[in-house]
């Protein structure tokens, strides 16, 4: 009778207590485990409660004379079976005992009769219970809960059967005459009614309430109080209540209008009973049919769908994990045959599930693909990062060069590169490049450009030629029409000469003569554009302590949220701030002798070496990076940022002298410690003195014609122990004069003119490298001497 439906909220493998346990007086979802054997307390209290309630109701209605005698409106007749059904034996016996007590009080029957009545009452109370639980012995939900039409029908049938049986038995027991048959029939009807209109709602209330029904021993399924009433339950209860109220209304009306005549009243009531009885059938029968249809076609399929939906994703996930591909996506109908709108609901649910599974699969594939791509890009980034040098220690040890590099692509990979490598015996090459565009295409071209430039710079002495040859190669097989700007320079670590070539790249920052500016170089065309372009080399002289900072336009064109650009000016300012700050700090840190801001007349001998205190290449790069990042703020990095800085890192000793002959002794005193030391000889010292005397005296005598203010002369000296040479720089503010512009000719001793002459001869003979430039109103003469 009971259809095998899945229960609401009943998940398998959740807290199921041991089989055989009797549930105790608490809601299954709340209380902790109770002892196995029920105590005697609960049955006793149930017994007592049922007893009291039954007796009260019975006596109450007996007190109303119209409700008694033949008419027998006895609501108490509903209580017995209901309490019995719900509470079990305590309920059965509680009510029967109360009835017995009432019988004792009113009937005045023999003990035998009383006993008989008692037994009959017990049977009446107990029959529905045992019949119910017998029928539902194998049901997964055996408890008296009217959540299906069949259960409701069962109850009503049991009510009928019980009433008929008990009245038959009583009839036989009391040995009543056939004439009193109708009154028994009336009694029977009364029982059925009460069980229906009062018993059913009462049972409903008990089941929905906090109390737990007490099943017989052969029931092993634990009780679960389900909080929500399903459609059937709601429908049944409202229907029953509504019809009960209707009957009540009819009864009241009839009773009110009936005359006080006992006979006619009884007749009226009897008629009422019969009519109600007759009406009950056409009322309840359709209800059952309707309920049954409702259940089969709507309620049950919806429950099945709801249950299936709850675990759908879980099942899908576990199937995917285990690699099963044959899972059923559609809702398991479990025997229901959905029709009408429910069938539509099933169809659309199945479609949604299929679409969703497909969508998730596609998403999964896309994610996996993206993951793969990201991993490949990671490796590509690694390759690119390792292609540019980061560790310059070997170069720093071998040559007096302080080098720092930095590269940060805008995406995982970028189009910028820099390179540092040895060229020849004492040259070091610095290369920087910027491929058009960003990302993977630029990165691929970058690797090509970097290796080509390196190859030609190593093979070819002249940088212009190297660029020309590299350009021709890059133009070949360049279908993607990419191009690259590049700047390369080679530093002669012995003399400080820097040769460079530029191909459309932004000129590097040059630190020279204590000032920061941009190197003046011809721009040149970008590499990879036209294969007929010829590049030319330029050069300048670098003094110890000076250097270059190469960078790409990712620095100068870094944009902030307001789309302002970082700019070349800001770049210079950032670097200038570094030097200014550090030099002052250095002056304070090196011992006591303070160097005055502008050395006018007083000559001060430089206090040891201060080059180490000047900002290192790494500091410059770090501060520039920090400055660009601070400037850009929240704006995303628009272009690859690359920097390469180097500084000729020789300790520089400085001296400033007034332009006067008498200072010559100070100059010699300055030269003495420099010319002493490893690798240097007294012969070398004498040669240096000769040359320096010539240069200095020339400046004093001829640099300031009458009327010109005599400005001091700056002398810098640096020793490169590793390269085994000595560098000197004379910087004066006299009139423009290039001592190297005159030939070293044989001097006629009669020749008094000092333009050229012996001095020049000496310089050329004793110094290995001589360079002159005129900058900022100064004559700058750089000399290099190898240790003798």
């Amino acid at each position, binding site marked *: 009778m009971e259809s095998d439906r899945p229960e609401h909220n009943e998940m398998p493998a959740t807290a199921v207590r041991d089989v055989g346990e009797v549930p105790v007086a608490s809601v299954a979802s709340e209380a902790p485990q109770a002892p196995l054997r029920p105590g005697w307390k609960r049955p006793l209290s149930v017994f007592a409660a049922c007893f009291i309630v039954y007796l009260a109701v019975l006596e109450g209605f007996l007190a109303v004379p119209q409700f008694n005698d033949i008419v027998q409106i006895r609501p108490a007749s509903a209580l017995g079976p209901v309490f019995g059904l719900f509470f079990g034996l305590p309920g059965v016996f509680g009510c029967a005992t109360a009835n017995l007590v009432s019988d004792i009080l009113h009937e005045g029957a023999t003990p035998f009769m009383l006993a008989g009545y008692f037994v009959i009452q017990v049977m009446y109370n107990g029959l529905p219970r045992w019949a119910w639980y017998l029928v539902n012995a194998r049901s997964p939900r055996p408890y008296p809960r009217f959540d299906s039409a069949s259960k409701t029908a069962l109850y009503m049938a049991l009510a009928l059967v019980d009433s008929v049986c008990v009245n038959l038995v009583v009839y036989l027991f009391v040995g009543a005459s056939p004439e009193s048959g109708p009154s028994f029939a009336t009694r029977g009807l009364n029982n059925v009614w009460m069980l229906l209109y009062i018993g059913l709602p009462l049972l409903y209330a008990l089941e929905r309430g906090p109390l737990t029904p007490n099943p017989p021993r052969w029931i092993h399924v634990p009780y679960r109080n389900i909080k929500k009433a399903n459609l059937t339950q709601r429908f049944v209860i409202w229907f029953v209540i509504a019809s009960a109220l209707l009957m009540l209304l009819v009864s009241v009306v009839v009773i009110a209008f009936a005359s006080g005549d006992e006979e006619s009243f009884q007749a009226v009531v009897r008629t009422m009973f019969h009519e109600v009885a007759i009406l009950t059938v056409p009322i309840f029968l359709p209800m059952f049919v309707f309920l049954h249809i409702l259940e089969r076609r709507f309620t049950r399929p919806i429950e099945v769908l709801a249950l299936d939906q709850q675990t759908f994703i879980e099942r899908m996930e576990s199937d995917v994990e285990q690699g099963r591909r044959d899972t059923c996506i559609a809702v398991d109908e479990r025997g229901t045959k959905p029709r009408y709108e429910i069938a539509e609901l099933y169809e659309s649910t199945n479609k949604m599930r299929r679409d969703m599974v497909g969508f998730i699969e596609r998403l999964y594939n896309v994610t996996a693909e993206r993951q793969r791509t990201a991993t490949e890009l990671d490796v590509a980034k690694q390759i690119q990062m390792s292609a540019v040098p980061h560790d310059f220690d070997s170069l720093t040890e071998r040559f007096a060069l302080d080098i720092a590099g930095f590269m940060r692509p805008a995406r995982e990979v970028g189009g910028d590169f820099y390179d540092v490598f040895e060229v020849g015996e004492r040259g070091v090459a610095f290369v920087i490049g910027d491929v058009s565009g960003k990302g993977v295409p630029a990165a691929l071209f970058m690797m090509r450009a970097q290796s080509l430039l390196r190859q030609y710079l190593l093979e070819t002495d002249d940088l212009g030629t190297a660029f020309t040859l590299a350009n021709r190669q890059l133009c070949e097989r360049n279908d993607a029409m990419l191009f690259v700007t590049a700047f390369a320079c080679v530093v002669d670590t012995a003399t400080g000469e820097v040769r460079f070539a530029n191909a459309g790249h932004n000129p590097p920052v040059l630190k020279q003569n204590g000032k920061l500016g941009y190197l003046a170089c011809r721009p040149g065309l970008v590499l990879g554009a036209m294969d007929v372009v010829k590049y030319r080399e330029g050069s300048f002289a670098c003094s110890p302590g000076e250097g270059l900072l190469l960078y790409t336009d990712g620095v100068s064109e870094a944009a902030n949220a307001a789309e302002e650009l970082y700019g070349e000016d800001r770049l210079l300012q950032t670097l200038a701030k570094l030097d200014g700050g550090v030099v002052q700090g250095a002056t304070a840190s090196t011992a006591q002798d303070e160097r005055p801001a502008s050395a006018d007349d007083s000559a001060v001998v430089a206090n040891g070496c201060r080059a180490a205190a000047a900002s290192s290449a790494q500091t410059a790069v770090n501060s520039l990076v920090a400055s660009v990042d601070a400037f850009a703020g929240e704006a995303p990095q628009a272009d690859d940022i690359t920097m390469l800085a180097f500084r000729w890192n020789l300790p520089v000793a400085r001296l400033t002298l007034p332009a006067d002959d008498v200072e*010559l002794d100070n100059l010699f005193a300055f030269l003495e410690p420099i010319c002493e030391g490893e690798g240097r000889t007294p012969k070398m010292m004498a*040669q240096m003195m*000769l040359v320096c005397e010539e240069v200095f005296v020339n400046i004093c005598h001829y640099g300031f014609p009458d009327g010109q203010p005599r400005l001091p002369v700056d002398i810098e000296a640096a020793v490169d122990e590793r390269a085994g040479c000595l560098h000197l720089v004379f910087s004066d503010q006299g009139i423009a004069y290039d001592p190297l512009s005159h030939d070293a000719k044989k001097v006629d001793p009669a020749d008094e003119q000092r333009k050229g002459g012996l001095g020049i001869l000496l310089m050329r003979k004793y110094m290995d490298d001589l360079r002159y430039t005129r900058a900022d109103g100064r004559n700058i003469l750089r000399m290099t001497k190898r240790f003798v």
Partner: protein
Amino acid sequence: MEIKATKNGDALEVALSGRLDTNTSPDLEGYLRENLEGVASLAIDLADTQYVSSAGLRVFLFAHKELAKVGAGLRCAIPTSTSPTCSTPRVSRKS
């Protein structure tokens, strides 16, 4: 720089000790201007001279010119040890 002069009749012997550079050569020049009258031969002893720059050489040339006017000669005694200025003989004797 110290100038030690010894006069033997018309032969003048000047021994220089120290450095002969731009600042000190005027001293020698001044001395010679005063004392070359009637000198038939001049000998300059540079044994104790560590350094002679072109300024010093000019003084020698000047002395040489002056003596040449009267037919006299100039003799420089340059130490043969490894004095630094030994490497300049070719220059210093240029004439």
